[in-house]
């Protein structure tokens, strides 16, 4: 019983990797260290291959959800390993815990704007910061963000709008003394 030709399946996978491979690779590099990102993208693509028949037309948000779950598993396993090693060698646990806020440690400190935005992001709630990263860094639209977060498109648009407002407030706090930036309230939601 041959459901689909091997070559055809490989071709579909090749097209999928060409489409989502680099965006997912960047998504992971933004949220963990390079070595873990490389490991996790391998896991992610393997899941994509195994679940190739479930991949929707808009594959990127679906692939990002897979990547996020693979990363979460890797980070959980890493935390367990770290605790176990700490017990066995009876020393203080090595500082290899997953970085909860990778932007804070990986951004080029030479850029003033980057440092200010990084600080402002760190001042936000985790969910607010993540939705802004998905929007600005991963370049997802509101409906795509909705898929990644498992919420309705409407809820995603509302959350994004509120998160932008909160980030603007944080940025205003940091530049209040220089007065360089002013924002209008009520900007549009994602494109």
């Amino acid at each position, binding site marked *: 019983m041959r459901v689909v030709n091997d070559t055809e399946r*490989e071709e579909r996978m090749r097209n999928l990797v060409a489409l989502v*491979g680099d965006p997912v690779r960047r998504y992971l590099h933004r949220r963990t260290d390079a070595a873990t990102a490389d490991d996790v993208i391998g896991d992610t693509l393997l899941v994509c291959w195994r679940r190739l028949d479930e991949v929707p037309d808009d594959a990127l948000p679906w692939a990002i959800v897979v990547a996020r779950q693979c990363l979460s598993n890797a980070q959980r396993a890493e935390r367990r390993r770290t*605790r*176990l090693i700490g017990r066995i060698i009876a020393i203080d646990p090595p500082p290899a815990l997953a970085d909860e806020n990778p*932007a804070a440690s990986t951004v080029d400190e030479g850029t003033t704007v980057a440092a200010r935005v990084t600080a402002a*992001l760190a001042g936000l709630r985790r969910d607010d910061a993540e939705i802004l990263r998905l929007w600005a860094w991963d370049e997802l639209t509101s409906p795509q963000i909705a898929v990644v977060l*498992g919420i309705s498109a409407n809820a995603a648009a509302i959350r994004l709008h509120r998160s932008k407002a909160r980030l603007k407030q944080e940025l205003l706090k940091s530049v209040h003394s220089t007065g360089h930036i002013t924002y209008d309230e009520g900007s549009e939601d994602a494109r």
Partner: protein
Amino acid sequence: MHDDDRALRDQLRAADPARALPPASPTWLDHRMEQIMTDQSVSTPTVTPEAPRRVFRRWMPMAGVAAGVAIAAAIIAPLVLGGPEPTVESLQPSMGGGLASGSCLVLEPATVAAQQQAFAATVLQIQGNTVVLEVTKRFVGEVADRVEVAQVDAITSDFSGVPFEVGQSYLVGAVDGTITGCGVTGADSAELRAVYDAAFPG
């Protein structure tokens, strides 16, 4: 997109840790495809149904031994090594529904979807006033292996919170580290499970 939004996005991009990451090399795709294709654990729909059955029959005795060893290791290893301890986080108990009247609105999937953390968990034990839940499923948010929360105070609560009982399973929603009451958190019933499934499809 609004100019204001564009400016904000440009600022955010300046802080993108991956902005200096070079594009994947041309060989990257081939390398990844090669890795995937050489993965022997993948069973694609292209194989005939008879083939895996024959293979399974041949390897079944060894698989049985391997499974036995794995189960024994799972039991003995924690005893020898002490085992990796589960991660634990604390959540604050429900502070009530936030309504002056003390009543709650009908629970909608959107309300559950708005939770920062949502998970299914079973009460392992109640020590004094502290309830220890073992997380069995994560719907959204980072949730530790176990969650500790103070038992609902029947005297001071507004009755929208959940009194936890040992051995019972619950669906739990939380925002800003505080468990949400008003029906969002409750015993794992078919009705509440349906709302969670609707809130977190897939």
